[in-house]
């Protein structure tokens, strides 16, 4: 305890000593707006400190010099309309002075018109989905910190809990408009470096915007309690020059086409049990284990178990199993995975769920089965 008190003391005296690890103040950020917000924050902080110094100085003077033990006799005054008016009016004027820059900044922040690029940001438990308008590019962005680091079996990396598999890539010097929404509960998309924090509300769309000045990687987190893994859905934005952005766009399109072709090819492939189980386990851990748990036991009363469950073990319920994974289950936290996973991934994960943890049904599902299921539904 003593040691930590010293650390605290050191922190207060020499803020620079820990500066590399954690800033002690709000970030200035990398946009015009974020700098204005920072300036506003510092202005109010200084005003508050000044008022505090004055008030506390008077108070402490009184505590030192007006003590009974020093022989102080109590004065008799207990009212003064003049003084009361003064300390009502002066704070009021200070508040107006604070409100003026705040109003200007706020109006600038809430003007998402004339944007160059529009991105739809969709939150869901517990990942972000980005869609680039007019570009036909969309993807999910998931936490990429390994489970082992979270469970303290591995040393934690420098970007522990603030790293994702696919960052949002944005060009600098362009006005970017975000349209925020959610597939389930309320989330909040927050990147401190842009001073953008906006709630993603299910069934509604919110607007926000930014214009990044400097290339770099900027990290943020979900800022609205959204369930069990609220602390595990970070945001990573990679800001690049315009040329790099264009190059990234065309690379994305190529990859998307290649993936499409691969998915088409997968429809006619038949994988072995071993292949399905290997891929299925990987998909399960990335997309299912947060709720149903790595051991398939779920969380009783919150998320159902898959181990020994009827839907994952009875042969005549295979269709229902496909249906719930593909389309989700309305009114529950079970999401529709049709748009999150490829047919092959779906086939693999369903096979995995039917054969892992002693479920041992021996059932195999192939990509083509997923496709057929979707077709039957269409009829």
């Amino acid at each position, binding site marked *: 305890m003593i040691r930590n008190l010293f650390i605290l003391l050191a922190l207060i005296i020499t803020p620079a000593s820990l500066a590399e690890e954690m800033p002690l103040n709000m970030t200035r950020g990398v946009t015009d707006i974020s700098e204005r917000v920072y300036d506003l924050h510092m202005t109010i902080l200084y005003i508050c400190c000044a008022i*505090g110094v004055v008030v506390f100085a008077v108070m402490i003077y009184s505590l030192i010099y007006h003590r009974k033990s020093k022989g102080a006799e109590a004065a008799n005054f207990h009212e003064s309309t003049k003084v009361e008016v003064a300390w009502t009016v002066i704070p009021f004027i200070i508040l107006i002075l604070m409100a003026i820059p705040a109003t200007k900044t706020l109006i600038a922040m809430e003007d998402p018109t004339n944007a160059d690029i529009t991105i739809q940001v969709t939150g869901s438990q517990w990942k972000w989905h980005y869609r680039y308008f007019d570009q036909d590019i969309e993807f999910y962005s998931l936490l990429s910190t390994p489970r082992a680091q979270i469970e303290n079996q591995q040393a*934690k990396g420098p970007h522990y809990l603030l790293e994702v598999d696919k960052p949002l890539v944005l060009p600098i010097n362009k006005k970017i408009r975000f349209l925020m929404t959610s597939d389930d509960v309320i989330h909040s998309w927050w990147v401190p470096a842009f001073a953008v*924090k906006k709630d993603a509300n299910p069934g509604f769309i919110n607007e926000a915007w930014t214009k990044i000045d400097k290339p770099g990687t900027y990290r943020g987190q979900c*800022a609205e*309690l959204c*369930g069990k893994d609220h*602390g595990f859905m970070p945001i990573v934005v990679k800001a690049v020059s315009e040329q790099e952005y264009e190059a990234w766009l065309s690379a994305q399109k190529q990859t998307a086409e290649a993936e499409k072709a691969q998915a088409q090819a997968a429809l006619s492939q038949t994988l072995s049990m071993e292949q399905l189980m290997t891929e299925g386990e990987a998909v399960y851990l990335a997309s299912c284990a947060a709720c149903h748990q790595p051991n398939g036991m779920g969380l009783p009363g919150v998320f159902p178990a898959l181990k020994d469950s009827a839907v994952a073990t009875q042969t005549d319920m295979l269709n229902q199993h496909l249906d719930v994974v593909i389309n989700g289950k309305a009114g529950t936290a079970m999401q529709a995975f049709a748009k999150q996973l490829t047919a092959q991934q779906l086939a693999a994960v369903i096979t995995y769920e039917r054969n892992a943890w002693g479920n041992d049904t021996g059932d195999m599902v192939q990509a083509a089965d997923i496709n057929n299921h979707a077709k039957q539904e269409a009829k």
Partner: protein
Amino acid sequence: MKTLTPEIDSQPEAHQEHDHHQPPKGIMRWLLTTNHKDIGSLYLWFSLIMFFIGGAMAMVIRAELFQPGLQLVDPNFFNQMTTVHGLIMVFGAVMPAFTGLANWLIPMMIGAPDMALPRMNNWSFWILPFAFLILLGSLFMEGGGPSFGWTFYAPLSTTYSNDSTALFVFSVHIMGISSIMGAINVIVTIVNMRAPGMTWMKLPLFVWTWLITAFLLIAVMPVLAGVVTMVLTDKFFGTSFFDAAGGGDPVMFQHIFWFFGHPEVYIMILPSFGIISAIVPAFSRKKLFGYSSMVYATASIAILSFLVWAHHMFTTGMPVFAELFFMYCTMLIAVPTGVKVFNWVATLWRGSITFETPMLFAIAFIILFTIGGFSGLMLAITPADFQYHDTYFVVAHFHYVLVTGAIFSIMAAAYYWLPKWTGHMYDERLGKLHFWCSVISVNVLFFPMHFLGLAGMPRRIPDYAVQFADINQIVSIGGFAFGLSQLIFLAVVLKCIKGGEKAPAKPWEGAEGLEWTIPSPAPYHSFSTPPEVK
């Protein structure tokens, strides 16, 4: 808590009536009591027990956050701890403590024999333990208790919650009914039972602030009842108040909740203002500066509290006009709050000050509550709030106003009036030890949270990025120290009840008010014949 002292009613007739009201012995005395002092004690003990239970949950939270990574509890249980910690501290610790103080003190301060509605008083206390048994019991259900934050935002609390939500809803209903009954009793007592000559502008400020608090309670507890009922029907009966798919709106939940929630914040601080306004003059041996401006400031804060609810919701995507309106109204609250602080400082000025434990807590209250007020003003500035919102900056802010604000004032009140309640002086050395341990540890606990928030750590997360590790460790150590320090308070109270130096009717030189005119411990019925107030 002691037998009556005959000096106060020397007439034989009155005496007879007293014997008739002699309390039964043992547990039945407490179950059936209609006496304001017994009920006040019940409330205060209940609040202290809840304070330790809620505190134990805070210890679980701080232990998990001691290091990055998941060590002790899983995220689902962590969320239950943050949720139930909040609910217990708000509805189980702070509010019942104030109701307990109101029960003990209001009749004594206004020269009344008891509260106006004693049987309802009994009810309003005795339903409370059941509310909290239900809430705590839900933690042991399959899937655990509520895990959606004490603010229970829909749809996390509706579609995405587990079945124990029904228990949460019912327990909140019972807490609300209890609060409303308590508030009605306070209003009826103050309006009807003041001693002759006790005009409105002679009321002690504790009575004034509680009167205004009681009106706030009656205004907003039904709103809370409404919103939990909507959560219940959305979850179990297929309505769509908060579900866009059925024509509802999840943001509407937040509007209704905070229309309750913001006045609730003042419900938890206005009685504190009353307490501090009693203690500061007593130990400065000088009359309170600006009594009438204190009354008007309290009323202004109460009225403004209905116009600022959406400052909790700046990030929900309101129109700019609404954001500006709520920003301006919120900033306005700084004016009457400032007036209060200035008045206290002016009361200290050129007083004849001594530093007994109640005064120490009162002085700490003024300084630390003001710091909480400053961060509150910063949070009111909408553009800056976008950066602060839902980070540890907010956690630091509301713990400064609720722990070093509300709870410190409750501690101050306990030390100040304990001699009147028990007839004994408390142990001053232990009291001072409690104060210094608390005031140091509470700042080690909450002050660094400002930095965590500014550096970008969101609230309500069980695990965090490695850069936040050092400060979280300091915060946790402060937390454990603060938790342990409160055991000293328990020791002081128990010791004071058991014995100690005999307290005179007025143990504090500068104290003013009718409660100091009756003996210590106060007789079972405070004033059987009303005193004359000149």
